[in-house]
Each structure stands twice: as structure tokens, then as C-alpha cells.
């Protein structure tokens, strides 16, 4: 594998944090469903100093939003390091490679390769999907451009290559569950420098997954960041448990969320005032954040976990208390390099 002439593969902040052995923190920034750059600024200012890099989602759940790379360019201007998400749903291999050349030229240094949510979930379900390539092939294409200086076609190119610290997702509890460590191995073989997992609420099951990952030696070849996220309500916890593939939410966590709202339980909708609902919501959110903090502390103790990826979807404000609560509030600072 080539390096960047500075001892690093790429030299992104995320790479430096991980290479130095710090427990990394990444977060997520969802671009707006509009052309409003202020949303990006506001969210970036909330996340800056509380994470080492921030994922910029790519039309997540197949809903049209400001593009990941465009938003990423704005995030770079705010002094926060983006992790560009790139899915295979909307672009073929030509568009993906061309967009990545631009992303690098615009200053982006981290990339997360995803297959992408199916368009039937989003706000344009009658769209044609692409899926010219899949996430594993995308990893190979990106590392091919970086390390071999070739496009997917095998054609070499002149001039600077796009150098990305490249990541992939892993879903430890999706079916077929026995195959999941091997699929992760395929992603590592394809060149994944880091991994961000699906949301973990069941630490015991995740520890078992990590046991298999360690047996395959994968934790020594890639940096594994466990996905965590604060729950907003007991209903959200139940929804995820029952409807989102690959998310296990233990009953104890759901009960804790219910307990947090116990003061308002058993009352009918019209018996609750606006203030009641607000207070209940705050109580739930506080408990959701507390559970997230505890999850991070438990996950941190698992061998082979290099960091956490905090997914506070449309709730970026939660990242600061989570990171501080977990004792990760002081993020390592490295001198910027080009």
C-alpha cells in the first residue's frame, strides 16, 4: 500500500486519531432537504470539537437532500472533517469516480462506501435505481484509484490521485448472522481502512460478534468503530427493534425508556398538556443520552473496538452530552497537513 509521503495513507484527522491509538469518535450530519447552507453550518458548529470526523449522509433512506459532497465542501469550510458517504444506488461507476475526483479536489479525505438504501423507502419510490456496482466493488475501485492510480476500467490516469481514508459499514446482527464476520472480512480484503457498524444496543451480542472478528484477525487490519445512537422515546426503541433489520434492542433498554416517562404513563392523550408532553419528551431524551453514554463505556471495553460512531439522526445536539458523558470530550488535536 502506498502512503502519502508523510507516513500516513492519507493523513486525514480520522486516520491520525486512529493511528495514534486514540479511541475515535465520529458523528453524523444529515444534510437538509433544501439548498439551505445555514443548516450545515449550524449542525457543523454543534459537532465541531466533539468528534474527529463527521459522516455526511448520501440521500439517506432514499430521500432527496443536499448532496454529500456538496455538503462536505461546506463542512470543510467550517473546519470540521467530513467523511463522505457514497452509495451505489444513484450513480454508476462513471459518476462515482468523477464525483470522488471532485471530492478530493474540494478537500475531502475520508470516504464511506455503502450499497445504499433501496429507493422504495424514500420519497421517489418510482425512481430507477442504478446498483451498477456494490459496496465491496466500490471499495476496490476507490483503493485502486488511490494505490494503483487506475480507474475501474483498468485505465491508468495522470495527475494527482484521489487519496481517501476509506471505510465501509458492517451490520453485525443482520441475517444470515453467521456470515456477517466473513462479509466484514471481504470488505477488509477489498481495502476498508475503517468500519462503522449498524447501531449497537445489545452489547453482549456485539461482544460475541467481535470475538469472531478477532478470531479472523480483522481488528488488526482495520479500525472498527461501533455504531451507537441515543433513543428519543420508547416508541422509537420498539420501532427499531421490530422494524429495522439488523438492530437488536434488549427489553431492558426499552423498559428503561418507559420508566423514564413513568410519571406521565397511563394517561390518555387529551389528559396531557403541552407542558406535560414537553417534560416527558425531555425525560425520555435524557435517559436516551444516558443509555448511549453507558453503551459507549461498555463497548469501549471490548477488545478490537477502535472507536464509536454516534448516529444522532436529526438530533445533532445530543452528540456533545454523549461525548462528554462518556469521558471523550477532549478530542486529540493534530497539526493540519496538506
Amino acid at each position: 500500500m502506498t502512503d502519502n509521503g508523510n507516513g500516513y495513507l492519507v493523513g486525514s484527522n480520522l486516520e491520525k486519531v486512529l493511528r495514534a491509538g486514540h479511541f475515535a469518535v465520529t458523528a453524523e450530519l444529515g444534510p437538509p432537504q433544501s439548498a439551505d447552507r445555514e443548516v450545515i453550518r449550524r449542525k457543523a458548529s454543534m459537532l465541531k470539537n466533539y468528534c474527529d470526523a463527521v459522516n455526511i449522509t448520501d440521500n439517506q433512506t432514499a430521500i432527496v437532500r443536499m448532496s454529500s459532497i456538496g455538503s462536505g465542501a461546506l463542512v470543510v469550510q467550517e473546519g470540521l472533517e467530513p467523511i463522505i458517504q457514497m452509495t451505489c444506488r444513484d450513480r454508476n461507476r462513471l459518476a462515482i469516480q468523477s464525483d470522488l475526483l471532485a471530492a478530493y479536489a474540494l478537500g475531502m479525505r475520508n470516504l464511506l462506501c455503502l450499497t445504499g438504501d433501496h429507493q422504495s423507502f424514500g420519497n421517489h419510490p418510482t425512481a430507477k435505481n442504478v446498483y451498477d456496482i456494490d459496496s465491496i466493488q466500490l471499495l476496490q475501485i476507490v483503493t485502486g484509484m488511490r494505490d494503483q492510480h487506475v480507474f475501474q476500467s483498468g485505465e491508468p490516469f495522470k495527475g494527482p490521485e484521489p487519496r481517501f481514508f476509506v471505510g465501509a459499514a458492517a451490520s453485525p446482527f443482520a441475517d444470515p448472522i453467521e456470515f456477517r464476520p466473513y462479509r466484514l472480512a471481504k470488505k477488509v480484503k477489498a481495502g476498508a481502512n475503517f468500519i462503522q457498524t449498524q447501531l449497537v444496543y445489545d452489547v453482549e451480542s456485539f461482544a460475541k460478534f467481535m470475538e469472531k472478528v478477532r478470531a479472523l484477525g480483522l481488528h488488526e487490519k482495520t479500525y472498527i468503530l461501533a455504531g451507537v445512537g441515543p433513543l428519543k422515546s420508547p416508541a422509537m426503541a420498539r420501532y427499531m427493534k421490530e422494524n429495522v433489520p439488523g438492530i437488536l434492542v434488549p427489553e431492558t433498554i426499552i423498559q428503561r425508556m418507559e420508566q423514564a416517562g413513568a410519571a406521565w404513563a397511563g394517561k390518555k392523550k387529551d389528559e396531557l398538556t403541552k407542558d406535560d408532553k414537553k417534560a416527558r419528551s425531555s425525560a425520555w431524551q435524557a435517559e436516551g443520552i444516558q443509555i448511549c453514554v453507558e453503551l459507549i463505556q461498555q463497548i469501549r471495553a471490548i477488545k478490537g473496538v477502535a472507536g464509536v460512531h454516534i448516529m444522532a439522526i436529526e438530533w445533532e445536539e445530543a452528540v456533545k452530552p454523549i461525548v462528554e458523558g462518556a469521558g471523550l470530550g477532549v478530542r486529540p488535536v493534530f497539526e493540519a497537513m496538506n
Partner: protein
Amino acid sequence: MIIAEQKSLAEIKTLIGDHQKVLVVGCGTCVTVCFAGGAREAAILAASLRMATKLEGNGRQVSDVTVQRQCEWEYLDQISEQVKEADLLLSIGCGIGVQAIAERFPEKWVVPGLNTSFLGIPSEQGVWAERCAACGDCILGLTGGICPIARCSKSLLNGPCGGSENGHCEVNPDIPCAWQLIYDRLTSMGKLDMLLEIQAPKNWGKSRDGGPRKIIREDLRLAAEEE
């Protein structure tokens, strides 16, 4: 085989418009087997249209005929007399049949009575399921005879994605996850190591993405010339 289903009567009536002499043309092959466009369906559709005509009182004449295969010239030639009498041909063959009729009888207006759906199999009584996407570069030898191009919602070559749950696809619980099926099959055959190989990006140029396709068999062309 090719699986199709009939359009709604309302849409068919719109397609017929003001035409007065309608010939419903059925096909005796795939669409007969999937109960969409055979002789029986042609007769029923013609009767339904006649009934509608009676109610609307517009004096339209509707008859029907079924050929063995709409996609071959020799069978279409057998109905040239009936075609001459009609001013609109309503094909309930697949999309290939509709186009063959348009090509063979260029002076006639032809409309489709079916939506051609997919290449598939009658998986149980009254149920048809997609099996092949005609991608032009078969990979079933790598996947235990289960096609991820046709049967995975994302056509993944290195599946399964994170949306596989309890054997079904997250897109719809009625869709079995193709990669779960592949995983189970390769496990039962002791060939799971095949799944550890990374499959390279597919050559979609052999699929429809390469433009309309054609196969030319010079050996058969020469044989025909010699006859």
C-alpha cells in the same frame, strides 16, 4: 417463460379509442401458460369488449383469434385474412408479440392488452415469480443456481446487504432474500468458501445497458442459404 398480466379493461378501452373493427389476438405459448393471453383469455376479453360495446351502443365489432406463437412470422401469416378485416389489432401476446404484429402488418394499428412483467416460473398454483433478468452473462454457476441479479432487490454480486431479515428482503417481506437463499444453498452443498471470493464489477454491456441485443449464428445462416 415470459410472465404477463392483463391491463385493466378501462385502459384497454382507452387504447382502442374510436376504432370500430377490433381483432383480439391471443398467443398460444408463454402467456397461455400464465393465463394472461391465450385462446381462453382472448375469447373472454373479446366478449367483455362486446358487452361494453352493447352498453355504450357504439356498434363496435370485436372478434378474436389465437396464434401458436406471435413472435414468429409463419404463425402470424396464418391470420393475415382476419387482420385485413380489422382496423385495430389488440394483441394479448407479450411485448415481443405486439411488436412482431406491428412489423408484420405495418398498415395496421396495434395496441397491447397485456403488461409484460418478467421471466419467471409458476412457483405455486396462481403464483408467478421472477427468476431471470436476461443479463447476457450468466453467473448461476457462482451462486448455486440462484440468481442475485434477478432476485436481489439491489442485484448485488457480493451480498447480502444489511437489509436481510428472517430470510426476507427489507424492501418487502414477500420477497425472499436471494442472498440468504444463496448462503443456505452453498452451506448445504459444502461450498460456502465460494462466497468468500470477491466478485468483480459486472459487465453490463452484455445486458440491456449495451444497447438492444442481437445474436447472429453464422452456422445457421449458412445452412439456410444452402437449402
